């Protein structure tokens, strides 16, 4: 009994520590300015206001940034998922010369600091006339996520019995139609998880975006929020509102694929 109580207390404290920062940012976003910067601190907003959210959309054009982020993340994640579905299949079902080398080449990109590529990538994007354009971000995000999606999809295929496809092929289906009609339906949850994971990565990405984008038209949410910081004084009310708005989609999406996330986190590691 004492043991159970102790365990419950420890778990409770950890839950509190985990959730409090999120609670605090939500509370901050709902306080009027005067209340945010006044002592003593209120742990519950005395006068709930949505003025910071309104400001975000009226003065900061946050709607456009959200639309940009959504566009880039959707397109890049879709492309990455298709590439992963095809590439993962080949890596799981065939042996061919260079297969091991290719997997190693993919894994290596997950391990080394990619910031060494940042400068030359900027020059490349400039040569291709892709700076300050959403298409440019999509392209680099696809490149950034292809190794991950391919490796994780390969893992998902390996859990589908080969016999399933062979049965379909015996029935006269071609390899490709066996893949599309028999294998992929079985793997839909995994494919969805890969898509969501890729989407969230793009949605959250900062350094590539601030390197390639500085025009208002093409800013994504993190780029816009980054420009809030570089000002001398941070307007914490708006910043808190922006944080809440940008984190809600990812929270919902991650909750939906929680059981696949461990797989995602280890994809670069244990597999291969």
């Amino acid at each position, binding site marked *: 009994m004492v043991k159970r109580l102790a365990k419950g207390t420890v778990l409770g404290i950890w839950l509190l520590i985990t959730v409090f920062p999120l609670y605090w940012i939500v509370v901050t976003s709902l306080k009027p300015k005067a209340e945010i910067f006044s002592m003593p601190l209120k742990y519950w907003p005395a006068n709930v206001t949505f003025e910071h959210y309104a400001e975000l959309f009226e003065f900061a054009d946050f709607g456009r940034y959200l639309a940009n982020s959504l566009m880039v993340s959707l397109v890049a994640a879709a492309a990455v998922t298709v590439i992963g579905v095809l590439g993962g299949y080949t890596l799981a079902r065939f042996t061919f010369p260079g297969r091991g080398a290719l997997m190693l080449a993919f894994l290596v990109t997950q391990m080394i600091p990619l910031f060494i590529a940042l400068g030359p990538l900027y020059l490349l994007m400039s040569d291709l006339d892709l700076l300050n354009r959403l298409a440019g971000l999509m392209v680099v995000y696809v490149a*950034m996520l292809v190794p991950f999606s391919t490796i994780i999809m390969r893992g998902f295929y390996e859990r589908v019995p080969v016999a399933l496809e062979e049965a379909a092929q015996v029935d006269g289906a071609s390899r490709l139609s066996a893949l599309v009609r028999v294998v992929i339906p079985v793997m839909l949850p995994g494919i969805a998880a890969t898509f969501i994971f890729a989407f969230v990565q793009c949605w959250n990405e900062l350094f590539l975006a601030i390197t390639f984008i500085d025009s208002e038209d093409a800013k994504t949410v993190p780029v816009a929020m980054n420009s809030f910081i570089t000002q001398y004084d941070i307007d914490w009310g708006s910043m808190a509102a922006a944080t809440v708005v940008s984190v809600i989609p990812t929270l919902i999406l991650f909750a939906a694929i929680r059981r696949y996330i461990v797989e995602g986190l*280890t994809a670069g590691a244990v597999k291969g």
Partner: protein
Amino acid sequence: MTKRAFTGRRAAFITLCLLPGIVFVVLFTYWPMVRGSVMAFQRYNLFDLTQTPFVGLENFAAVLAEERFWTSLRNTGTWVVVSLFFQFVLGFGLALLLRRHFRGRGLYQAWVFFPWAMSGFLIGLLWRWMFNGQFGVINDLLLKTGIIDQRIGFLSTPGWAMTSVIVANVWYGTTFFAIMIMAALQSVPKELYEAAGVDGASRLRQFWHVTLPHIRPTLALIVLLRIIWILNFPDLIYSMTGGGPAGSTDIVTTFLIQQVMGGDYGRAGAVGLLVLALLLAFSIFYLNVTRSADGEKAR
């Protein structure tokens, strides 16, 4: 798995499936990486691209002569070792507590897992606000509980700034360890415990002699990956302190990003290669040490 010659329709199918991914990775990851490594040996400043001669090891010499590089290297050590230590210990504890099923465990895991949906950038902002020297909630809580009697400028005092970013990082990374270690614990075959139980081994002895040896190789790998990952994780520091005050929270990756933003691609390349070499040397050393330790145990 199909094992046949790489010819005809089969080869065409394989090539077609893999080509898009390869093209993207080669063009937008490997090519810039190679180009960046070559730039390390060139004078290459964005503000004067008329002359980009090869200068041998000049960039490396310049970087190594810079005090800030060495500071960032020392900070990287602190940042990685201290973050990792607390993430590991707390994560292990959490995993052991969550090991047995109880009512509401799924819901609990969902809640403590949520930091993973946030970017390092947002987490940095969250904690920057909480650690605020004037209106920060952490100062307020410490004052209220009587632990301190004067506000601390957490992010404006060099020693405190490093502590603060590490606290944020531990908050972020502990759950990761908990989940990974739980997965590792579940991989221990039940029969091993049954055998130990018959022998009358206590819980603690079971843990020490059965569980730990079994999961040690996995733990070693998880730790290595975390080390690499924490080192490559400038986002949180970037938004929380920007490497300041006075470079006291600069790590090698924030230092590298500053070089890129400053337009000196030659030096950025040199820093990148130095970090890469260090990482590689460390990984090889680490794998050798952990492998030989496990090897001896097995014999």
